[in-house]
């Protein structure tokens, strides 16, 4: 009994669950919360502008006036790193939420449809998308939609939904064979009602668990795309783009690439810790 109550609590009352968090999730939050706070505070209160170039001395090493030094255009790396935190985490959140919602819904529909041809056709599409090398297909979509945040989001949404759909379909197949699913049929409930009120609530918890670990992957994809020049456009501060810029000065001005890279790694580790903690909790 304890198992299902705990799992249900995480699913239904995430905030109540926060109170009794395990150490892993606490460490994860201890890392993430400061990054999110600094991400919103530093750009607002810093004397330096994250985008305007030529106001400071270029390639200054870290000191008390510029905690993370300055880049080749004289911009403060500290303010740029945390301005980027804001953008990266917002994009990552949207890049997880969009595919999660769309994919879970599609998966639930094709997992419980009575037309095998419909689900078959969707599965071919899903497997085709999943089989493609991820970076190749996202680059192609960015090329189609143009670079920038909307290009990244379009690429993530159009590809990543297929993973969620596959996961949700597998779960929906189990739900579709369950006694309570049959019970809703013989009670005379309509198909939309059964889908929304009985299938989705039993499917989405798994998508949510996957979404948390997907968050790390999505942050890396966003940074990776920008690193390749297919993501955000200069002068917008973004971790991947900043690392790409700093690459040229790695031996002479290491701080330009290292600090955004550090921020990216720390964020990824923080999210991974929270994901692990919540997942283990929901299993116990």
């Amino acid at each position, binding site marked *: *009994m304890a198992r*299902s*109550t705990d799992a*249900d609590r995480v*699913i*239904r009352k995430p905030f109540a669950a926060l109170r009794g968090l395990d150490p892993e999730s606490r460490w994860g939050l201890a890392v993430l919360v400061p990054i999110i706070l600094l991400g919103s505070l530093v750009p607002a209160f810093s004397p330096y502008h994250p985008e305007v170039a030529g106001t400071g001395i270029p390639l200054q090493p870290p000191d008390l006036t510029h905690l993370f030094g300055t880049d080749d255009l004289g911009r403060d790396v500290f303010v740029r790193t945390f301005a980027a935190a804001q953008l990266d985490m917002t994009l990552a959140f949207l890049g997880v939420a969009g595919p999660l919602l769309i994919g879970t819904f599609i998966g639930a529909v094709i997992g419980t449809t*009575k037309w095998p041809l419909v689900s078959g056709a969707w599965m071919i599409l899903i497997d085709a998308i999943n089989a493609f090398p991820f970076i190749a297909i996202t680059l192609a979509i960015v090329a189609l939609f143009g670079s920038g945040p909307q290009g990244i989001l379009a690429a993530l949404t159009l590809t990543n939904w297929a993973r969620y759909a596959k996961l949700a379909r597998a779960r929906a197949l189990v739900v579709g064979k*369950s*006694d*309570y699913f*049959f*019970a*809703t*049929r*013989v*009670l*005379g*409930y*309509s198909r939309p*009602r059964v889908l929304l*009120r*009985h299938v989705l*609530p*039993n499917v989405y*918890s798994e998508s949510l668990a996957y979404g948390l670990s997907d968050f790390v992957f999505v942050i890396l994809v966003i940074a990776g795309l920008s690193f390749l020049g297919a993501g955000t456009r200069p002068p917008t501060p973004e971790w991947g783009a900043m690392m790409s810029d700093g690459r040229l000065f790695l031996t002479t001005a290491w701080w330009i690439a290292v600090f955004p890279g550090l921020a990216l790694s720390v964020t990824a580790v923080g999210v991974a810790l929270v994901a692990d903690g919540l997942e283990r909790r929901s299993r116990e």
Partner: protein
Amino acid sequence: MTATVTPLLQVEDLSVAFRKPGGRLLPVVDKVNLTVGVDRAHGVVGESGSGKTMLCRTLIGTLRRHGAVVTGGRILLDGQDLARADERAWRKIRGRVIGYVPQSSLASLNPVLSVETQLVEAVTVAGRTSARDARAEALRLLELVRIPRAKQVLGQRSHELSGGMRQRVIIACALAPRPRLLIADEPTTALDVTVEHKILELIGDVRREFGMSLILVSHDLAVVDEVCDEVVVMYAGASVEAGNLERIRPEPRHPYTRALRISRVDSAHPGQDLEAIGGEAPSLGAWPSGCRFWPRCPMAQDDCRPDGQPPLAWFAGRWTACIHADLMERP
């Protein structure tokens, strides 16, 4: 005894078959007749594989889900032939006119929703009360199925309830639209004996209170005897004996019905071996020719083997498929 008023549901020579790959048909229900009067309780008794569950699934219109089709016969409800009804017609009947309490009900409640959410949903879909009164109606239904501390149970979810409680909630959901016919397919299989008795009593009482008709399916003749007026005994897809329980209980006129009766523990005599039915029920697609019961029948004779399954004939106040019914003595 036949009802003088028009029956609520009339099943005539209903045949159902599984559709196998390649279009082959595997019969599972073979020319079954069943007449359920208004405000009457009708039992269906048979072993596993006798086709009783598929008969129920036919009457609730979910055959296709199980890969089966109606291959003959009629199901008349209010002059409408349900054997030919499409999904749209079924949607008006399923749950609303014909309610259904499923077989393995321990998992029939949605695990992530509370009892209240599910009952309110059943009430809302039934459309008999306004949305505002739905919660009060949900509570009323819980009290109707005699759940103690109903208010507290409303807030609970499936895993917090015992088997008997879950079954009561399921029955409450099925009762929400006030169906005219309730089909209960082995509603007590997963429950222990004391709870079984209470649930049967509940079903019987609610049926009388609502003036509802009932089809109770069981493998146990005694269970059906507790609640029903009439019974049809099924064996290998066919009905072998049908009629009023008053006549059939004391004096079965089919060897299979008789065997069902005397193989019960409570009819055994101390010091004597319990009589069991020899052999095994024939599996689907391997029904013997002639009377399907003859390989296991203690009084089988040579003329039982040729021809097909004998049709029901009126004998001694009930319908029986045994051509030697006159040779049977009282058990």
